[in-house]
Every structure is written in C-alpha cells, then in structure tokens.
C-alpha cells in the first residue's frame, strides 16, 4: 500500500508536491515545528465536533445555520528563531552597524520574514463545533496539518470530550462515498486518506478516541478538490442529520455554496462559465 501523488506532470512518484519552507536541504540539524494555539473553548458546551477541510464548507452555510466564530486556531512556524541551520557563519556580536558592507542586508530582511502562519476559524452552530482547515498543497506544508490534528485531538482527549467526533474528508483514491469509524471501515486496499482528515484520523486512532465520518470521492490535488453532483447529493443527505434546518432550504443553500466555492466540477456548475 503506497502513497501516490496526484499530479499531471511526470515527476518521480516518490516526490510529492509541497512547499519548500526550509531551503537548506543539506542541513543535518533538526527543523523547528509549527506551534499551534487554540482559542479557549469549553468543550463541555458541545455535543459534537466536526473536523474537516475547507472543501466541505458548502455543507455548513453560516447564515442558514446561524453559526458564530468562537476564535481562530493559529499555527505559526517561526524559522527566524536562530534554531535553524544557517548558510552563513553566526557571530556572537551583531556586526550590522560597524560592518554594513560585510553583512548582507538582504539576508536580514529575509530572516525577519521567515515566519509562516495558518489560521482556521473555529465556528459553532447549536451544540456543534466545526473546525475546518483550509488546505493548499502549494502553500501549506503538511507539517501544519499534522500539528493541527495533533493539538486538536490532544485537546479532545485531555478534555475528556464526551460528545461525538465526526470527520469529513475527501480522497482521490476512492470512487464512492465511504463511511468510516473507529469500529469499522469500508475502505479497501489500496484506498487511503491523506491531508488534514488523514492526519486527524491517524491521531484519533493513536489516542483511541471513538469517531465516525465520511470520506468522499474527489478529484484534484489537496486544497483544490472537486466533488461531483452525486457525491454532493449524498453528502447533503447525510450531513442534514447534524444540522437543525429545513431539509429543502438546507439542500438548496448547500448547492448554491458548492457552486460558488468552486468545489463543483466545471461541467456541473451551470451552462455558462
């Protein structure tokens, strides 16, 4: 069972597209990890936590569900802390002022900007908490997704969360909607789940937390997945159980959002472009 990339370019398949955040590949030092900050939220107020990626946002229309933002989940990777291996010698004294020509000013600017940040709003509707992470295989390194998954699941495990944990993900390796849970899975080899939801399920398994969820078939690379009409219809039917709204209104709003968000396949987004 191996990991294969989604890519149109014939690159070696053992290399996956992800942003280069640490330029010095030859370094033998370890890299710093992104730090995750979660807003203070009392989990006891909620009976359900939905963990998903932004591609599923059309299923949770804010206005219809009257959802409120509780705070931002922030992940910061600070590469300017001096812990990283640098390409130039380090000095115990700051020579910038006395030797301006010797110290490359371009480097100083570069060092200051070596901070990467990712924010994900945590929203609630009714007694449901929704954490939806916007992925982008061009800009977001998977280390961010792994760290978010770790922190969120740790928080659920520590807080002895008694409600249900729902995961909603996509995979380009499957052809139909697959229910998953901690008790059973409908995935068959060589199907697999990657990206944020893959990281979340990995952490939930590690912490032995019960969960249920759905993995939807998608096309496209991480962060730019497209869902087809059949999948969307199934998702809407299944997700309606978690929202408190008239089914027909919910359904129409989901379809509208799905088309607007660009998650629809081109041929199904209407007659005109």
């Amino acid at each position, binding site marked *: 069972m191996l*990991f294969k990339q989604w890519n149109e370019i014939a690159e070696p398949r*053992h290399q*996956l597209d992800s942003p280069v955040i640490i330029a010095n*590949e030859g370094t033998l030092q370890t*890299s710093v990890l992104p730090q995750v900050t979660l807003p203070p939220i009392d989990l006891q107020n909620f009976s359900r936590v939905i963990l998903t990626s932004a591609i599923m946002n059309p299923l949770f229309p804010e206005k219809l569900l009257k959802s409120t933002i509780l705070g931002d989940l922030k992940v910061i990777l600070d590469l300017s802390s001096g812990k990283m291996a640098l390409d130039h010698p380090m000095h115990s004294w700051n020579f910038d002022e006395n030797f301006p020509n010797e110290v490359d000013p371009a480097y100083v600017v570069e060092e200051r900007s070596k901070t990467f940040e990712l924010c994900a709003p945590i929203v609630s509707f009714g007694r449901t908490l929704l954490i939806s992470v916007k992925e982008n295989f061009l800009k977001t*390194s998977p280390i961010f997704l792994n760290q978010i998954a770790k922190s969120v699941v740790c928080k659920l495990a520590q807080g002895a969360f008694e409600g249900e944990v729902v995961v909603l993900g996509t995979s380009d390796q499957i052809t139909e909607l697959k229910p998953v849970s901690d008790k059973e*899975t409908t995935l068959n080899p060589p199907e*697999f789940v990657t990206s944020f939801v*893959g990281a979340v399920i*990995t952490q939930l398994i590690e912490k032995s937390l019960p969960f249920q969820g759905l993995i939807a078939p998608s096309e496209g690379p991480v962060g730019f997945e497209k869902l087809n009409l059949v999948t969307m219809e199934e998702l809407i039917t299944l997700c309606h159980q978690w929202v408190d709204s008239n089914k027909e209104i919910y359904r129409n709003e989901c379809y509208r959002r799905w088309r607007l968000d660009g998650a629809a396949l081109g041929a199904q987004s209407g007659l005109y472009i």
Partner: protein
Amino acid sequence: MVRTLIVPLVSTGNVPQLALDLLVHSLSSEFDFVKSLDSTFVHPFVGPLDYVLDQHVPVLFSKTAPQKIYSTALELFYNESKDIYVLQQRTPVIQGYLNNLIKETILPLIDEFKIEDVVILDSFGPLDDDVLEATTVPARRGTNLISDGTCEVGSVTDVIRSFEQSLNLNQGSELHLPSSLFKFTPDSLQQEISSKQQIFHFAYHLLNGKSPYLKEIKYCSAFVHEGDNSEDAHLLCDHLPVVIESLDKLLKHTPPVSWKGVYGLRPVPIAFDEGIYV
C-alpha cells in the same frame, strides 16, 4: 543471530517500500505488528489493513492487534524467529523534516529494541544525478544493479572527523563524497554515497546517536527505472538474504492485495514467444 532493523527510504519507484511489502506479506505468518510510530514528520496517511489475497483476515496484524482496522504512515513489524524488525513507511517525509524523523522517531527504536544492525534500503534511477556521480564507469558496464555498502560503527571518531571535513573544509564543492563512510562491495554499481542523499543523513544521525547496541549500518541500493517497479521490488527482496544473515531466500513471493490494479503482478515477458501484446 544479529538483531536487525530494516528501514526503507522513499526513493525512485518506491522500490524499497514495495520490497518490504513483499517481505512482510510473504512471511506474514512469521511477522507480527508491533506498533504504529509517530507520523508527525511524514505526509498524512491512513488506510485499511493490507492483506494477502487468499487470507480471510489480515494475518500480519490479527495476531498481535486483532482490534486494529487502520494502517498508518509508519508501522513496525517483528519476526521473532529471524530477529528482524521491519519499519514500513507509507508516505514521503515532509520537506525539511528528514533529520527530525531520524532523530526523534527512528533513533529511539534502536535503543528501545536493542538493534545491532540497521539495513537501509534505497533505490535510484537515471535521473538521480547526485547518486549517479557516485557510481563508477566500470561498474555501470556491469550487470549487477544492486549495491551493498557497510559502515562499521566501531571507528566513530574517524567517521565524525570525516563528517567534519565534508561539512566545513569543502564548502567550495557542492557535492562531497564522504568516501570512508561506507565500504561498498567491489561489484557494486554505487561506490560512494553523496552528502545529498538521504542515507547520508541517516548515517550521520545513527552514528551520532551513539547507541551502545548498534554495530553496523548496511546500505542496499537498487538501480531502477521509474515505472511499474514491482519486478524491481522482487529483485531487491530476493537480494535481502545477501545482507541479512538470518534471512533465507523467499520460496514464494506473495504481494499484498493493495498491489492489485496498481502494480503488475506478472513477471515481465522476456521473449517474443509470449507475444508482443499482453
């Protein structure tokens, strides 16, 4: 018996991972699942348990973890009769975090399980320029496509000196070949390792880990062409007994069901009597 840990590098054609798939599934009655390892430093992965086609249950997992229904990115297996640990890695390392993976995930295993020999499997192809520079022209004309190198951990001081030289004194040359690190067999295609290769990072951290148990690092690298590399995986798997004493040549290769539809399961036709069209 020497306690051995086999580690695949995610490299050209995924051949090392496929070779280990073959090893653990062909000997699935002997190998047991030990544990999942922290997969922070590799791309996320979760999938169902893999199994061999004629098995009704995933034998590899059912003996020690009957409740398990998902596979994760890094899993450790153990064969007690041969005293071999196998680390299966299912996804590539996240860019920039190779050193973290080795230091924080793999090194602790060596102490925890008192590993004496670490066997690292690698593969490279015609496009891997940094590795090709490390091959010799006479060797390229040979027919042996698998290279075997050994690093005796005993003379750590010499080796560390070699690292220091390679890191500081040769800043001008982009590619330095630490020649004294691995001793390759004379018929190996690869006669050196380059500092750009993953094996260089592994060797550096394993040697600096100063494990009291570790005696040898063995490096086994196959020359492959990117494509359907299941046949290369069979060859690399058959080569393993050359570097691991306790392992006998597998009588029958049984690939896992996940290969079906992804990799060809039939041997490559070598004569026209099998027809041009398959």
